[in-house]
């Protein structure tokens, strides 16, 4: 009976089984496993049933630790339970995993194996996480492909029920989890046939049950623990047989026979490679080719890693073997060798020692593919060649250039094993332009052809806006095992013209390949627009070059900006993968399927676009010679710092793989201020300042998420050498007759979000639609504005003291030390961070939780955290997700200790320094920036004097002097951290009473990982794991902190009151104790036009969803104050919420539920407001009057 074939990725393949054989899924999102949990949640909300006819419950927990606990509890009470995780998440589950295995409880955890954060975090794939869990006693079963991720998920489920040992089923993160492939899917009948209901019943019978009570989790003593630990041995001894049985039963059903260890290659191989995971697919492809040329090599693919059955391993390897290379996709620093290598070595050693083998082959071990580093046939060949070397390297690495420890093997990049009958295609696009979606659709279409196989892999860069995407697709007549990026491309497409100036896109092109370019230039004119190197490749490789103005075709069809269907049509038309007419018919079918219910005209527009496409697709006749003098601009200018030029620039150019080990800092320390060298130019429009209309209020500079608006005042004489066209205006305000105000735009860094325009309160008298800052096309003013900005950067900084930086109008002059991040255009979080650096940046330490802020803050190649002209700036680190508050507390403990020591030493040196001076420094008040600067000067003078004192304590003091200047510790993160996984630590830090400031950038959802609900998600909002609208109300984190009594708490929203925001930052810093600021951050996950983000902030406050307040703890005997800064709700919640898709979509899906939750949300608002007003009455502001509303309505300003 033919089964269905389906095109899907590894995550879906595994989840499809896990969902059907479980009753409970307790999860927590973490890349790259999140999709599995999301699919389970989606299926549950659709009412899909498992094989027992019931819909599994899917529950999102507060952390992986919580998920593991919930899983343990559910298992102990007899439910079939699973979870999906990776990396750090798996680590957090380890304690429970010991318990679950110790209690012999069947379960399967599905892991998209990912690197662990060590010198850096990485979201990409290797085996470090599962290897870290290998001591837990779990069985470990490894899948190497999407088909295996599907099949072995089921085999694991059978085996765990039979053996009672829990299983980790793992596959390579991203490489397999996100690879799209055509596989045979198992139907419910297959799944049923693999699960014995007797075993399920046995599991239930062992459950905790008051009808047959038992106790578990006892404490044991030295008299029995050892024996009890050993009592599990028979279960582990029996496990390999259970797995074999499962595999055989599976083979009977499907014809696919798996083994614990599978051998491929020459029956009499002398050289054998042992590995597991996706690399095995590549190794197999390579060995097949090498053996065609008589290499006589073989490969052992490991499926069951734990328990490690030495007998099965040895039995799988031909006796002819002379040398073995064991490849580990992990690193265990300090070990005698990596885990798989050690196991293989031990197996052979024991066999030889016990007489099972007569001789010991030469066994080497090596590391490959860490963090999804490419693992190619050339590297496999190098490993095998190494075995034949006279002096084979052991503990080698392959795929990198290790010029420090010299572990790396050389490999021949020209060795390629892509089959002739497999068509490799590479597509370059920009995020959200539909390229990836269209390619996934193409894979589906081709996959549906009975004879075709298709594979797709997608590469993204690290930015959240304007990011580049590269799609690697292969099509062929056989299952595709090439688990590496396309090396020989017959078809290359570039969907965004500007990429030709940024990327070397014909590198993989074979001779005679097709290159399709979306070009705004005519077929005659496009040649002259190409860089010389591209022209050279086109000619040299005899490329068939096609162009189409896809944007114009889309526009004409009424679908401006939607080019994906058009480019997809071109692909099918010229790649020859499918017959043209058939392909076009299939495209139209899928258009109907996608848009049919959304509107007939959407379908027709798409059809029109498809039909128009072919008339506009043109082949370009290549000239005989290169004519262009254009070349790609250098990635960074010549005056960039050395590290930036040598290392950062390479990464920016996409050539990071070529960096040798010596180029990377050993301890993971990187310089700041690197984002300024990355001129991304992702927007075609930029703001233009109109000095005559401007009232110099400072709002635009305050709200710019990318710090692309810079403001300074200077003496007018400084402008004598300004370039023509440099705009300035007299500084508004009395007493500064010679000062000029200037506002400049970093046009290459602006993302075009338009928040500055939306926030500007000033309007032209003559034209009400013209503000003091308006968007305009970038191209005409590009050169001029670059010169203006370069000149602007030479103007002196404005120092504290001349302008009142406690006002929005004053803070705009302060130098930002957070600039040009890779955050989404219009991000709601970044303006708060930038403000933080303007106020305290030169003495700031930031502990940053994992999340959006750690990604746009610290994802290589660049960081937006920056420095001032003195070279000072924020010192920043990301530790983990769950520990961020504690991590920041650690900063404060250390700073306080060192300051205490410095003071002790200072006092001890009183005779030498004088009591007055010592007292002045020791007791200096350092609250205002001026006071801090004064102390800096005192300390600098002291350093000079100390140098002349020849005493041990003077020398010691010199090493600690900097601690006498006040340092500011800020603990930053999102709501996922603060409300959920990090809450325990946050709570403890609040309770500690220490002087730390906590800034929660509250987007009300897990933004970084794609919008999963957190406890901050409000009632009625739709998010992943709250697909039917969040039922529970939003947690009131602020109120919980107020309850401590000694914590400064502020709830702020820049779009509702910039001044209150500023006040809160200053008050938090001044408060000598814990401070908590919760900052409303609009986000792309809210489903809004980001240009209206600040408007939404104001509406959130106006409707009472986000009241603004500041709780000031009691000081010096005065009572606490609860200052309510916003007014009573004046509009219904609906007026705010229904501007956002996250609320609105529920009204489409389930109008009754939407109405119900909206009514409850309105009640939440009313209730909360009454609690807050009663607190404001109980703890009034000091003057005795309720403090007036801080909301500055933007007064209309007339400026001539």
């Amino acid at each position: 009976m033919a089964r269905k074939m389906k095109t899907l990725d590894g995550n879906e393949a595994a989840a499809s089984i896990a969902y059907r054989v479980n009753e409970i899924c307790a999860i927590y999102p973490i890349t790259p496993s999140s999709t599995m949990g999301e699919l389970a949640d989606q299926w549950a909300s659709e009412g899909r049933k498992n094989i027992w006819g019931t819909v599994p419950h899917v529950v999102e927990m507060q952390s992986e630790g919580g998920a593991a606990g919930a899983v343990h509890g559910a298992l102990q009470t007899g439910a079939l339970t699973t979870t999906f995780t990776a990396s750090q998440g798996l680590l957090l589950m380890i304690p429970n995993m010991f318990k679950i295995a110790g209690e012999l409880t069947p379960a399967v955890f599905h892991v998209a194996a990912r690197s662990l954060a060590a010198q850096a975090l990485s979201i990409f794939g290797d085996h470090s996480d599962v290897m870290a869990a290998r001591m837990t006693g779990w069985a470990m079963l490894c899948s190497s492909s999407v088909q295996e991720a599907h099949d072995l998920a089921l085999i694991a489920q059978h085996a765990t029920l039979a053996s009672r040992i829990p299983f980790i089923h793992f596959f390579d993160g991203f490489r397999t989890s996100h690879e799209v492939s055509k596989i045979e899917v198992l139907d419910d009948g297959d799944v049923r046939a693999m699960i014995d209901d007797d075993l399920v019943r046995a599991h239930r019978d062992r459950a905790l049950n008051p009808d047959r009570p038992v106790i578990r989790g006892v404490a044991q003593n030295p008299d029995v623990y050892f024996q009890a630990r050993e009592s599990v041995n028979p279960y582990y001894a029996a496990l390999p047989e259970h797995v074999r049985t499962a595999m055989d039963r599976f083979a009977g059903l499907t014809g696919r026979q798996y083994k614990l260890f599978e051998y491929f290659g020459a029956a009499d191989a002398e050289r054998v490679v042992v590995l597991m995971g996706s690399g095995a697919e590549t190794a197999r492809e390579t060995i097949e080719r090498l053996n065609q040329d008589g290499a006589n090599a073989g490969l052992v693919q490991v499926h069951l890693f734990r328990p490690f059955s030495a007998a099965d391993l040895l039995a799988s390897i031909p006796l002819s073997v002379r040398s073995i290379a064991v490849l580990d996709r992990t690193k265990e620093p300090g070990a005698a060798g990596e885990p798989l290598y050690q196991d293989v070595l031990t197996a052979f050693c024991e066999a030889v020692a016990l007489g099972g083998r007569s001789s010991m082959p030469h066994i080497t071990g090596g590391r490959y593919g860490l963090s999804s580093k490419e693992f190619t046939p050339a590297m496999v060949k190098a490993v095998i060649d190494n075995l034949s070397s006279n002096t084979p390297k052991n503990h080698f690495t392959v795929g990198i250039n290790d010029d420090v420890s010299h572990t790396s093997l050389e490999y021949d990049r020209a060795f390629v094993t892509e089959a002739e009958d497999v068509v490799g295609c590479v597509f370059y696009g920009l995020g959200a332009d539909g390229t990836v979606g269209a390619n996934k659709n193409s894979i589906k279409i081709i996959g549906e052809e009975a004879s075709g196989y298709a594979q797709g892999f997608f590469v993204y860069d690290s930015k959240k806006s304007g990011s580049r995407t590269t799609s690697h697709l292969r099509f062929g007549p056989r299952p595709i095992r090439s688990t590496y990026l396309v090396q020989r491309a017959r078809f290359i497409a570039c969907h965004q013209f500007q990429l030709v100036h940024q990327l070397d896109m014909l590198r993989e092109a074979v001779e005679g390949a097709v290159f399709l370019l979306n070009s705004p230039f005519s077929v005659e004119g496009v040649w002259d627009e190409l860089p010389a190197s591209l022209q050279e490749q086109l000619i040299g490789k005899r490329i068939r070059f096609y162009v189409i103005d896809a944007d114009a075709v889309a526009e004409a069809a009424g679908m401006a900006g939607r080019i994906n269907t058009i480019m997809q049509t071109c692909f099918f038309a010229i790649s020859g993968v499918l017959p043209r007419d058939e392909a076009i018919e299939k495209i139209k079918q899928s258009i109907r399927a996608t848009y049919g219910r959304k509107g007939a005209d959407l379908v027709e527009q798409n059809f029109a676009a498809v039909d128009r496409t072919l008339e506009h697709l043109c082949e370009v006749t290549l000239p005989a010679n290169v004519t262009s003098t254009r070349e790609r601009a250098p990635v960074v200018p010549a005056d960039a710092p050395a590290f930036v030029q040598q290392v950062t620039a390479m990464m920016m150019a996409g050539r990071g793989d070529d960096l040798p080990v010596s180029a990377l800092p050993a301890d993971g320390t990187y310089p700041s201020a690197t984002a300024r060298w990355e001129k991304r130019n992702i927007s075609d429009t930029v703001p233009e300042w109109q000095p005559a209309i401007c009232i110099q209020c400072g709002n635009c500079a305050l709200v710019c998420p990318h710090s692309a608006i810079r403001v300074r005042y200077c003496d007018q004489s400084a402008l004598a050498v300004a370039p023509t066209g440099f705009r300035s205006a007299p500084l508004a305000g009395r007493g500064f007759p010679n000062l000029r105000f200037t506002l400049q735009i970093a046009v290459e860094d602006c993302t075009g979000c338009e928040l500055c325009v939306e926030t500007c309160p000033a309007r032209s008298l003559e034209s009400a639609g013209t503000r003091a800052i308006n968007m305009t096309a970038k191209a005409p003013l590009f050169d001029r504005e670059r010169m203006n900005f370069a000149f602007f950067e030479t103007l002196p900084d404005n120092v504290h003291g001349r302008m009142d930086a406690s006002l929005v109008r004053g803070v705009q002059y302060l130098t930002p030390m957070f600039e040009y991040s890779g955050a989404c255009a219009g991000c709601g979080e970044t303006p708060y961070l930038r403000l933080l650096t303007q106020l305290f940046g030169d003495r700031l330490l930031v502990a940053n939780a994992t999340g959006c802020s750690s990604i746009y803050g610290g994802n290589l190649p660049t960081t937006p955290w920056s420095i001032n002209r003195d070279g000072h700036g924020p010192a920043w680190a990301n530790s983990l997700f769950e520990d961020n508050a504690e991590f920041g507390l650690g900063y404060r403990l250390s700073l306080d200790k060192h300051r205490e020591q410095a003071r002790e030493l200072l006092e001890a040196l009183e005779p030498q320094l004088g009591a007055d001076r010592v007292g002045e420094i020791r007791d200096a008040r350092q609250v205002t920036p001026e006071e801090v600067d004064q102390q800096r000067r005192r300390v600098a003078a002291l350093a000079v004097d100390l140098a002349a004192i020849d005493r041990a304590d003077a020398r010691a003091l010199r090493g600690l002097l900097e601690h006498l200047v006040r340092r500011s510790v800020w603990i930053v993160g999102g709501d996922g951290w603060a409300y959920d996984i990090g809450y325990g630590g946050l709570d403890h830090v609040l309770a500690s009473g220490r002087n730390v400031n906590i800034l929660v950038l509250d987007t009300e959802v897990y933004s970084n990982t794609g919008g999963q609900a957190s406890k901050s998600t409000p009632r009625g909002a739709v998010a992943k794991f709250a697909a039917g609208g969040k039922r529970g109300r939003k947690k009131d984190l602020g109120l919980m902190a107020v309850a401590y009594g000694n914590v400064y708490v502020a709830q702020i929203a820049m779009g509702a009151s910039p001044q209150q925001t500023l006040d809160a930052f200053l008050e938090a810093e001044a408060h000598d104790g814990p401070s908590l600021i919760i900052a409303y951050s609009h986000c792309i996950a809210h489903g809004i036009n980001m240009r209206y983000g600040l408007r939404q902030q104001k509406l959130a406050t106006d409707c009472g969803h986000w009241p603004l307040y500041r709780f000031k703890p009691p000081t010096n005997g005065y009572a606490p104050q609860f200052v309510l800064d916003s007014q009573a709700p004046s509009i219904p919640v609906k007026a705010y919420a229904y501007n956002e898709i996250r609320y609105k979509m529920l009204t489409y899906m389930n109008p009754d539920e939407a109405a119900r939750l909206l009514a409850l949300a309105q009640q939440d608002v009313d209730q909360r407001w009454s609690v807050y007003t009663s607190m404001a009455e109980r703890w009034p502001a000091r003057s005795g009057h309720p403090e007036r509303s801080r909301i500055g309505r933007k007064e209309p300003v007339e400026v001539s």
Partner: protein
Amino acid sequence: MNLATRYMGLMLDSPLVASASPLSQRLDTIRELEDRGASAVVLFSLFEEQIRHDAGALDYFMRVGTDSFGEALSYFPVVEGCEVGPSQYLELIRKASAAVDIPIIASLNGTTDRGWIDFATLMEEAGAKAIELNIYYIPTAMHRTGAQIEEQYLDVVARVKSAVSIPVAVKVGPYFSSFAHMAGRLDRAGANALVLFNRFYQPDFDIETRAVAPTLSLSTPEEIRLPLLWIALLYGHVKCSLAATTGVHSATEVIKYLMAGADVVMSTSALLRHGPSWLAGVHQDLNEWMERKGYESVDQLRGSMSHKALPDSMAFVRGNYIRILESYKSPT
């Protein structure tokens, strides 16, 4: 008192109809309208533009930012049934038709040729007893002629008439160069009723904030004069029914409109101001007046002061102006 009325072939208990308004958005208020005496309810308009916009917005916001960043390939869950369409409106038609005995008249403001037909068809299928075409179109394009605009209106009517078999009313504004001619053409195009007149909401300026503010002001009794004039002129000259709307605040306006020749009189503003209970009061007043004047039925009253009934009245065709001049005629 016989208040029975025939409107586009529908038999109604009285000439008082609740016009399109927020009161017709919910089942409970629709029921209350029936209880208080509305003889039919015109639902709030379905705006094709709104649906297309919202569908486009939903599609856009679900798509934006997707497949850009490896950790967040999408920002929203995949959910079934998340589509923007007329389904909620159609569901209301179904429910309302089942809940009340009085006819539910759906109201449609379309924008595309296809949209007019598709939505009208769906409305008929859902059980609407009639459709009111709310042709609300402000011709701002300077190159479009009056004739082109008129053709557009007629085209819409023709399309919808060809697609449905239930009666089709056409609600228009008065801004045609030759309104009588237009009314006749609409009548011949198959309109089963003319609803006079649509009120166009013009924006206002807030001079302090210098922002354009949309306004929603309820009508006043003075506003009946324009529709009153035209109903009086058209009565008897068109085959289709005539519905009066705008400015109805008491039985007085109802009576005036009926006398001019209206088949039904619709109210929105009064219902929004006073609630559905207002209808009961109007019915009572209407009954009392008719009794006092000796009328036995609304049919008897209808058109009694139309131009047809007062052919010599210059007031209709020349307005007050001529009366004023006349006073200066030399006495002969």
